C-alpha cells in the first residue's frame, strides 16, 4: 500500500477516534454493565411487595377485564419468575405511552390490588446511560447523536485496520512495556482493537442503525419507494382474520402460553403483551426466553399470536423459528448487539468485551494526547502540551473516571436510600451527573496527570462500595435499612464480582500512578519528568 494512502487513513483514524472516543467510552462501560441489567435492579432495589398475591394469571386477567368498562388499548401480564413472586398486570393510563403506569395484582380473596412501589428500575437507568453515551439529553435527542457517533466509530475501525495492516503480523502480540509511553499505549490499543474487532464492527453498525433508523426509513420512502414506507410495510404484513373485539371472548393466558410452547419447543413465555385491544387487529405478543437461539431483545424473543384463536400469525421474532432467511438475518443483528444468545456465558463474555471496548477508547485518547506532547528537555523538565491537548487530556480523565465512579455511586445510592422515594431515573441521574461533573471540574483544575491519581482511587472506592454493601447487608439490622439488609439472591454474585474486578483494576492503576507519577507510565503528561527521559520522543 502506498505511503500516502496509509497517511491519509491515519489522519482519518486519528480524528474520527478523538471525536467519538469519549461518548463511546461511556456507552461501552455502561453497556458492559447493562449485560446484568435485571441483576443490578434486583441488587439495588427493594424486593416486590406482592409475594402474597394470587398466583393465577388467568384469574388476574379475567378480574382486571371484568372491572374495566373499556379495557386499555394495551396492557402487559408479567408471569411469576426470577425476581417476581406472583403475576402482575401493567398498563398505562388511557393506553398512552406517556400515561401514568399502573400495576395491579389479584389478592388471595379475589380483589384487585394496586402496587405502589415507585416505578423505575436501576437497571433501566444504566441501560439509558448506555444508550445516551452519558449525554445529559432526553433519549430521543441523544439517540440520533449516538447514531452519527457510531458511524464515525465505524469509519475509525476501517481506517484503524488499514493503518495497522502493513505491520499487523509483526506488532499484534507485541506488548512493549518500555519507557516509550506512546509505544505502550499503541501496543495495548492495537491488541485490544484487533482481538475485539468483530465485536466492534457489530457494535458500530448496529448502534448506527438503532440511532438512525428513522432517518433511513424516511430517506427510503423519499428515494426508493415513492409511495412511502407505510404501504411497503403494510404490504409485507401477513393477512389475518379479524379478532373479536370483546376480550372476554379471548383465550385465557394459560392457553396462550401452552400454544406458544407448542409452536416452538424451548420457548418459555415470561410475559404477554396485549396490543390493539378493542380493535379487530388485536394481537398478543408472547415474550419468552430461549437460550439456544438468537433473540430479538436483550432477554426475550416474541411469538405474535391471535388472542382469540391462539394461532401464531407471525414468527419473525420467534427464537429459532423465523419464517425466512430474512427473519433469521434480522434477528441475528439484534441478538449480536444485545448478546441475547447462549445464556449466561455469552452475557459474561459481552460484559468483558464491553469493558475492554472502553479500554480501547481510553488508550486511543491517550495516544492522541501523547502524540501531541513534546517531551523536550526544558529548563523545568516539564513536557510541553499545547492548551487544547491539556484540555482533551483533562476531559478524557474526568469523563472516563467520572462516569465509572458516577454509575457505581448511583447504583449504591439507590440501594442505601431506597430510591429516596423518587420516580424513574431522578436519583440515578442526580448522582451520576453530580459525580461526573465534579470529576471533570477536578481534572481541569488540577491537570489530567495530577487529578488522575485521586480520581482513580475514588473510582476504585466507588466500585468497591458495591461488594462492600453486599458484605454489610448481612450484619446491619433489618429495621434500620430494609433494602440494604435484604437477603442475598443468586444473581447478585454477577454484580458483586463485576464491580470487584473493576475496582481491583482501578486500585492497581491508582497505586501504580501514585508510586510512579513521574514516569508517566499509566498517565498522560506527567508534570515533572526526571532528567534522561525527557528527551525521548
Amino acid at each position, binding site marked *: 500500500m502506498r505511503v500516502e494512502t496509509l497517511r491519509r487513513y491515519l489522519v482519518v483514524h486519528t480524528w474520527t477516534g478523538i471525536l467519538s472516543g469519549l461518548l463511546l467510552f461511556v456507552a461501552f462501560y455502561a453497556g458492559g454493565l447493562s449485560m446484568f441489567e435485571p441483576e443490578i435492579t434486583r441488587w439495588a432495589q427493594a424486593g416486590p411487595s406482592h409475594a402474597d398475591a394470587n398466583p393465577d394469571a388467568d384469574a388476574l386477567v379475567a378480574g382486571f377485564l371484568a372491572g374495566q368498562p373499556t379495557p386499555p388499548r394495551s396492557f402487559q401480564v408479567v408471569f411469576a419468575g426470577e425476581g417476581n413472586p406472583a403475576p402482575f398486570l401493567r398498563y398505562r393510563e388511557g393506553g398512552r405511552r406517556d400515561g401514568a403506569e399502573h400495576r395491579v395484582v389479584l389478592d388471595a380473596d379475589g380483589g384487585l390490588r394496586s402496587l405502589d412501589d415507585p416505578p423505575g428500575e436501576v437497571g433501566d437507568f444504566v441501560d439509558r446511560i448506555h444508550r445516551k453515551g452519558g449525554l445529559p439529553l432526553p433519549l430521543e435527542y441523544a439517540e440520533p447523536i449516538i447514531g452519527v457517533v457510531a458511524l464515525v466509530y*465505524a469509519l475509525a475501525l476501517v481506517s484503524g485496520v488499514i493503518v495497522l495492516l502493513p505491520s499487523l503480523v509483526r506488532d499484534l502480540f507485541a506488548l512493549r512495556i518500555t519507557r516509550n509511553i506512546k509505544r505502550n499505549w499503541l501496543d495495548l490499543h492495537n491488541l485490544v482493537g484487533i482481538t475485539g474487532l468483530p465485536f466492534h464492527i457489530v457494535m458500530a453498525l448496529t448502534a448506527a*442503525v438503532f440511532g438512525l433508523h428513522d432517518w433511513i426509513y424516511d430517506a427510503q420512502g423519499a*428515494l426508493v419507494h415513492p409511495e412511502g414506507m407505510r404501504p411497503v410495510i403494510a404490504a*409485507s404484513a401477513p393477512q389475518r382474520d379479524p379478532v373479536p373485539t370483546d376480550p372476554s371472548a379471548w383465550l385465557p393466558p394459560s392457553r396462550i402460553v401452552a400454544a406458544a410452547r407448542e409452536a416452538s419447543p424451548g420457548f418459555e413465555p415470561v410475559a404477554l403483551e396485549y396490543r390493539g385491544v378493542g380493535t379487530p387487529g388485536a394481537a398478543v405478543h408472547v415474550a419468552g426466553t430461549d437460550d439456544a437461539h438468537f433473540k430479538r431483545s436483550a432477554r426475550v424473543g416474541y411469538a405474535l399470536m391471535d388472542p382469540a384463536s391462539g394461532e401464531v400469525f407471525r414468527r419473525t421474532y420467534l427464537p429459532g423459528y423465523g419464517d425466512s432467511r430474512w427473519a433469521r438475518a434480522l434477528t441475528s443483528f439484534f441478538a449480536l448487539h444485545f448478546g441475547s444468545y447462549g445464556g449466561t456465558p455469552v452475557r459474561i463474555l459481552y460484559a468483558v468485551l464491553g469493558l475492554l471496548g472502553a479500554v480501547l477508547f481510553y488508550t486511543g485518547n491517550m495516544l492522541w494526547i501523547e502524540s501531541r506532547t513534546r517531551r523536550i528537555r526544558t529548563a523545568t523538565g516539564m513536557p510541553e502540551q499545547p492548551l487544547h491537548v491539556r484540555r482533551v487530556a483533562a476531559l478524557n480523565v474526568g469523563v472516563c473516571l467520572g462516569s465509572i465512579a458516577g454509575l457505581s455511586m448511583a447504583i449504591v445510592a439507590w440501594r442505601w436510600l431506597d430510591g429516596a422515594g423518587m420516580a424513574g431515573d431522578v436519583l440515578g441521574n442526580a448522582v451520576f451527573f453530580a459525580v461526573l461533573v465534579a470529576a471533570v471540574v477536578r481534572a481541569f483544575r488540577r491537570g489530567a496527570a495530577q487529578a488522575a491519581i485521586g480520581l482513580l482511587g475514588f473510582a476504585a472506592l466507588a466500585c468497591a462500595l458495591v461488594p462492600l454493601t453486599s458484605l454489610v447487608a448481612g450484619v446491619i439490622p433489618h429495621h434500620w435499612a430494609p433494602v440494604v439488609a435484604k437477603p442475598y439472591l443468586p444473581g447478585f454474585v454477577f454484580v458483586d464480582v463485576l464491580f470487584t474486578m473493576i475496582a481491583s483494576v482501578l486500585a492497581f492503576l491508582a497505586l501504580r500512578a501514585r508510586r510512579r507519577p513521574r514516569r508517566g507510565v499509566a498517565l498522560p503528561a506527567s508534570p515533572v519528568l526526571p532528567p534522561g527521559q525527557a528527551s525521548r520522543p
Partner: protein
Amino acid sequence: MAAAERPGDPGRRRASSRTLLHQGLAGAVLGFPLSIWLTGLLVHYATGGNDDDAKYQVVMWSVVPMWVLIVSLVFLARSRLSCWAWLIGANFVAAALVQAVR
C-alpha cells in the same frame, strides 16, 4: 476510485487534513442517498420485491454498512474535485437504475 491506487501515480499529492475532512463530509452527505439507492437496488429489487415482513427491515439495516463503505472509499480520491465527481456520478447512475427497475 481504484484508479487512484496505481503505484507511482504522479497526480496524487499529499492531502491536507482539511481536504480529508472535506472529502469525508462530502462522502457522508452524498454517500447517504447513494447507499439508499444501492441497497434498494441490490437488496430490495434484486431479490424479488416485497414478499417478506422482515425484508424491508434487512434492507434498512444494509444501508449502514453500504454508507460506511462509501465514506471509507472517498479518501482514495485524488482531489476534492474528483471526490465530488465520483460521488455525484455514482448517485446519478444509481438513481437512474432504481428508476429503471421500478
